[in-house]
């Protein structure tokens, strides 16, 4: 068998200069990198925020139970702002990203991100909806506390009423928060990340 000089041939071919830098790699790669990183960031944000909010709600519940104070309107406003603002930013980011995907090969990723974006939009609406519910609850509690004379009905009954109210608020908040807000968004987010992985 004739021995061709394949070693020399092999060395002749050198990788193009253009593929030396990440920023000149085909755009689909850099996009894939950035969106993957962003999706993971959103996912972490979801779980951190959810944990913090549970702690916040429990704290408010205890505060109400032991001191007769309800979750204040201020708390509700802050909760709404901290929930909604980061997601508004991400919605705008993903909307731009989805628009930039034009090739057919990335259609699945585009669809996946679009459903995530839809669920994020739904999430924002739910945040506003919950804010209104919390507001109504607070007004109702304020009215209730003003009407009922706790001293006359006895400390035990008063404590019982406040404990039940605290429990209802806490439970409704946690259940509502998770089931109606996070579940869909997190599922869609996990799908998008799984697709990229």
């Amino acid at each position, binding site marked *: *068998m004739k021995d061709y000089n394949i070693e020399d041939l*092999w060395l*002749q071919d050198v990788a193009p200069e253009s*593929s*030396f*830098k990440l920023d000149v*790699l*085909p755009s689909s*790669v850099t996009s894939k990198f950035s969106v993957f990183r962003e999706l993971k960031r959103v996912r972490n944000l979801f779980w951190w925020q959810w944990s913090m909010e549970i702690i916040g709600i429990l704290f408010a519940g205890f505060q109400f139970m032991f001191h007769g104070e309800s979750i204040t309107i201020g708390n509700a406003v802050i909760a709404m702002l901290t929930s909604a603002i980061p997601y508004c930013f991400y919605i705008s980011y993903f909307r731009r990203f989805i628009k930039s995907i034009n090739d057919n090969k990335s259609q699945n990723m585009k669809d996946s991100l679009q459903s995530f974006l839809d669920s994020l939009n739904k999430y924002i609406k739910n945040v506003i909806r919950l804010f209104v519910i919390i507001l109504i609850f607070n007004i109702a509690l304020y009215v209730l506390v003003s009407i009922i004379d706790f001293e006359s009905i006895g400390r035990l009954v008063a404590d019982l009423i406040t404990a039940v109210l605290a429990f209802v608020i806490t439970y409704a908040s946690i259940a509502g928060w998770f089931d109606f807000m996070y579940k869909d968004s997190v599922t869609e987010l996990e799908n998008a990340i799984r697709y990229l992985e």
Partner: protein
Amino acid sequence: MKPDFQKILQDHNDIIYKISKSFAFENYQDLYQEIAIEIWRSLEKFRGEAQIKTWIYRVAFNTAVSYSTKVKRQVVNNIPIDPAEIKAIQENYQTSKEQAAASKTKVNLLYQCINMLVPVNRSIIILQLEGHDYEEISQITGIKINTIGVKLNRIRNRLFQLLKDNGYERL
């Protein structure tokens, strides 16, 4: 400390490029992307137990084998080199421009012939062409060191036969 992804890609650009071309000649850019993404994803798992180069080879070969299994394209079988192209190059062989073109065609033929080998054999020949000794080839591929020599001999013969059959000498 986590190694810098961009630097790793720069340092090993040449070998990733060559592995990509050897496993997916026509779609080597796609494979290059896949390997780059796989390196990026696997960086967290890299604990520095192996040398970074050895680790890069492993990741690149594993990705390339999975990719070629998925795509299953035999470039040379499906798209043989156009005889008209070979003739045109032969006619103008004297000028330096065509010499360069012929040389490029020979290199491409080499890649295409490597692409026709069994995936594990592709890895072995690439590592030899890159100048690695038997011990390093064994370390990267996981093949027993005492079988590497025999395997290499067979692979080289098969490669030369493929080159000959696909018109290497006419180029």
